């Protein structure tokens, strides 16, 4: 009788472990899909955006388009973005760079025109002051993941709703920027 209980206990234990492992794997898979789609949307958005040529280091056709990821990349977006470096956006090569914190960002902005697209992970955005954001959005398209990001001065957010990405824009932030979204993209986007 004792032996039977032990077996039953062991079966339940393995079943719980298997369920936990499956859910973990499934969750990891979903995250990977989301980041892949996010990377693709960022890339596609870059094809409908125009930057001021004089200030954004895109004066020449062979100048690269720099996509920066701010914050800790826990969900592994960078590798997904790296995939698109083999493609071109409006005839330009794409370069991806990771920025860990505000200091790296400001350093990057000070040299060679800075980032053209900045994708902010959750958490790091809050470290930026209003002046930093005002300065950034002059020549950088600021993309985040939440409505709060937009409320905090972000220009465009990729918000997941029912396994689909909704593009939401902050018109005020876009109005005050030299970075212009094409109208045909705006048709698809929702407004904050």
């Amino acid at each position, binding site marked *: 009788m004792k032996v039977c209980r032990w077996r039953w206990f062991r079966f339940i234990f393995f079943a719980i472990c298997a369920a936990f492992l499956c859910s973990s794997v499934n969750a990891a898979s979903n995250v990977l899909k989301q980041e892949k789609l996010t990377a693709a949307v960022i890339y*596609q958005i870059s*094809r409908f955006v125009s930057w001021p040529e004089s200030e954004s280091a895109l004066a020449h056709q062979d100048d690269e388009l720099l996509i920066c990821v701010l914050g800790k990349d826990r969900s592994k977006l960078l590798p997904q973005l790296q995939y698109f470096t083999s493609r071109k*956006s*409006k*005839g330009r090569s794409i370069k991806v760079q990771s920025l860990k914190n505000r200091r790296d960002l400001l350093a990057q902005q000070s040299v060679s025109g800075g980032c053209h697209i900045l994708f902010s992970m959750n958490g790091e955005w809050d470290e930026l002051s209003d002046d930093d954001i005002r300065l950034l959005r002059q020549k950088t398209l600021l993309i985040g993941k939440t409505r709060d990001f937009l409320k905090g001065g972000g220009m465009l957010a990729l918000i997941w709703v029912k396994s689909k990405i909704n*593009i939401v824009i902050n018109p005020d932030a876009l109005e005050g920027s030299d970075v212009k979204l094409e109208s*045909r993209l705006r*048709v*698809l986007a929702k407004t904050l």
Partner: protein
Amino acid sequence: MKQKIYIFSSFKAKLIGLMIGVTFISLLVSSVGLTVVQVKNFRDSLEASTLSNMEILSFNLIPMLVFDDSDSAQRLLASLKTRPHVKEAEVYRVDELGKLVFVARYPDGGVHFDHKDIREYISPYFVDEQHYLTYPIILDDDTVGYLYVYSVFDELGEFKLEIIVTASFIIVMCLLLALIIALKYQAILLRPLRLLVEVTEEISLNKDYSLRADSAGKDEFSHLALGFNTMLDEIENHDHQQRQAKLDIRQLNMDLEETVKKRTIELELANENLLATLDKLSQSQNKLVEQEKMASLGGLVAGIAHEINTPVGIGVTAVSHMGELVAQLELEHREKTLRPKDLERFLENANECVNITFNNLGRAADLVKSFKQVAVDQSSDSVRVIEVADYLHEILMSLRPQLKKTKHNVNIRCAPELKVRCNAGALSQMLTNFVMNSIIHGFENIEQGVIDISIERRDKRIFFTYSDDGVGMDASALSRIFDPFYTTRRGTGGSGLGAHVVYNLVTQALNGNIVAISQPGEGLRFEIDFPEGKHYVAK
């Protein structure tokens, strides 16, 4: 029977027909050309407008395809309501594998058509008023999708109808105008021609070549009238000359008829004279031939007479000597001096004289017998059966007086039993003439010649061959050997009728054929054949 009606039989009708035809063709060609150009331009403008709209639509569709927003694409396609000729539109996205993925269609809610491949319509395709077009949606040199539009341009059909009606109306009006102008102008244009035709008809009807066409003016018709008048001058002149010539010819004909009559009478007279002369000539020729035959017979008679003279003379001498012996015997008998020895000598001499006389008289009798038969045959045309070999020997016997003066040899080859029913006189005359010709002409300056005579029967015909090895004759003389009066010894006794007589005897009396063969120095050969027996028919 149907009769063809020629609408354009007159020049007037042809002229009007030409003007109308040219006008119609010109108008038709230009109208068709303009219609085609106008329709093409209109169609191009419709197509360009469609393309322009599709370009705008495609531009706006790009983010919807990129972000796979079919709802937005559907809303955008709904804007095609403003273009009523667009009956159907579809948007497709190109996936990562290059396959087409349906995104949206217009009108919304309609049935989605299964196309083979809408990319077939990337080059616009027009069928009447239906237009198919697929527009590639391109972003940064990448084809991200396709927009397919099916339109029906009703206005294109209306435009075609309108332009055809207008062109037809213009053509009809222009043709009417051309007809009116042609009718008016042809009367003016053809007036000189009509006058010219009237003049020609008048001339043709009345043969009055003094008429002239009106050549006033400087156009082509006045040149034609001038040329026509010049031709009339020549015709009038020619007509005058022709009339004169006819009169001359008539006079000449009359003179000629008179002359012909005179000449005909003269010719008839001459003809009669000629016929009489010819008759005389024929008679003379026959007479000459007959004389020749008679002369030959006379020669034969003379020879025979000479030949008979010798035995008869010997006989006479023997009889005369016999008479003297008888007188001597009678005297000795009367004087009784007759001795037995004298009687024996008398008997011996008398016997010798009798023998001599008998032999010579017998010889003369043979000659006469031979001559008698030959002479009778030659002087008559009797047909009888002869023994050929004997008869040939008799003929040669009659020719002996001529042959014995020479050393010529005559060889006869003939079957002894051969009997032939024929004109014997002709055969005799023929052989006599051949032998005499050989002696006189063939063996001239030849001391000893050879004459070969052969006669045989083959297939109910008699083949007679006579040849000598004399001097022969050349081709020219040979070709004339049978001509009457042809001789190489005229003035020395030759009459030129010997061979001619032979030719007539063979061809007429014997009803046969004769061929003479000779070459100079190789003698002369005659080959004769004639029918025998009951097949023989004397002419």
